[in-house]
Structure formats: C-alpha cells, structure tokens
C-alpha cells in the first residue's frame, strides 16, 4: 500500500482557527481533515483557515473532501479561507470552482488580514 502522508494540526491565531495540512491531500486524508474541522467547530470557530503546506499532491478525491467542508461551512454559517497553495493548485481550485466559495490567499499572514478586515 502507498498510503498518503498527511499531518494535520490545529491552532488559533487572532480569532481564526487554523488547520495546517502538511502533506498529500487525497482520499486517505478524509478522516483527518473532517475530524479537524469538527473539532474546531465544536469549539465554536466562526473563522477557519485551511493552511496548506508542502502539498505536492492534491487530487480530485482530496478536492471532494474540501467541497464537503465548504458544504458544512455554508450550513454552519462559518467563514472559510485557504492559504499556502502552490500556483498550480490555486489554478486547479479556480478551475473546479472552489475559489468562488472560498477566499484563497497566498499565505497565512495575508489570510489573517483578510479575516480581520471582514470582521471589522
């Protein structure tokens, strides 16, 4: 088996729940990402940032997981943003339409500024 290697960490910064996704985002990532989202939601997060790092491989199964998160975010009236994506995956996310529903930032600092501006 060639299981994918994804590490998921949760932290908080300036009122934003940050979920760090380090590694590959594929079908194997579903449980880790969903659990992280559920955990920050249980703690009352309104603003959530999926912070991608060193993601060499995000496939359509991984994108499907993210679409599921967007669905939940909309249902729960939360705000979701993404940062740290490579230029290629930013293009892919625009291609599939995810960028219409999620603010995509170059990096974490820019995303935090975006959340702060939206909250002001």
């Amino acid at each position, binding site marked *: 088996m*060639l299981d994918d290697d994804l590490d998921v960490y949760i932290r908080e910064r300036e009122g934003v729940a940050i979920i760090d996704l380090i590694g590959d985002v594929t079908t*194997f990532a579903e449980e880790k990402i969903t659990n992280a989202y559920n955990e920050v939601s249980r703690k009352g997060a309104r603003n959530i940032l999926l912070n991608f790092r060193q993601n060499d*491989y995000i*496939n*359509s*199964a991984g994108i*499907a997981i993210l679409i599921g998160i967007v669905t939940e975010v*909309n249902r729960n009236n939360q705000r979701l943003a993404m940062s740290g994506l490579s230029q*290629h995956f930013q293009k892919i996310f625009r291609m599939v339409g995810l960028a219409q529903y999620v603010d995509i930032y170059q990096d974490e600092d820019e995303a935090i500024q975006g959340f702060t501006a939206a909250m002001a």
Partner: protein
Amino acid sequence: MYDPSISSSIDLSIPSELGYERVVREAVASFAHRLGFATERVEDLKTAVSEACLNAIEHGNAQTPGLRVDVTCVWDGSGLTVCVQDQGLKPYSGHVTPGIEQRLRGDAPPRGLGLYLITQLVDACGFEPSPGGGNVLYMCMRRCPRA
C-alpha cells in the same frame, strides 16, 4: 547526449491500488522534464495523469487485486501522448460531471471531478476503443503552451 527531437516512449504497469498513481505521475513528470516541457506544463500533466490513473484504478478496474493499469507515453518530436488503459470492469460513458454548484447543493456526488480536470489541463483527450476490451483514455500535450 539525449536528443528530444527524435521519438521515444516509456511503458509502465501498476497494480490497481490507490497510491500507485503517484508512481506514474512522477515517472511521466520526469520524462516530460527530460523532453524539455515547461514546469507549468509538467504540473498540468502530472495532475491529468494522476486523475486518469485514479479513474482506471477505482472505476475501470474497481480496485480489483491482480488487475493492472497500463500506461504508455509516446513522444513524437513535438508532443507527448499518454494512454492509460484499464481492464474495463466498468466502462466509461465519457460523461464529464457537472460543476461545484450541484455538488454543494447535494445534487451531485462530491467525487467525479477527475475527467473534468483532465479535459481542462491537456490539449486533447478522449476515449478510444481497445481491441482487447477495457477503457483507454488518451491525453495529448504539446511541448509549447497553448496560445
């Protein structure tokens, strides 16, 4: 000295097991780099090839142990054609599923974006008949980006 103006090819065969698409992805990327493809084109090709292999593993071969996915990459001097063949346990309709709006509304399953991505990332693609049965998806990419 390697001369990319002459034709050349590579053949790969992988098990129908999730994760092996990454092996093909890296091999095809390495081949394309060697042929002088720009980095952005290689990234597009990597994603397209991964998705084609994923479809073959999950759909065409239904992740059946013992069934193989065969990949051929042929360079003709100006472009690369990658063919991904499965055993055709489930035939493809070639239908590209709808966009994200339907998925967010729950009117379409979240999966199934692979074929759509492939159509967007390569210069030409489609299914071709296979004498021995099975699905054969071909993808063509020229070395120079589209204008």
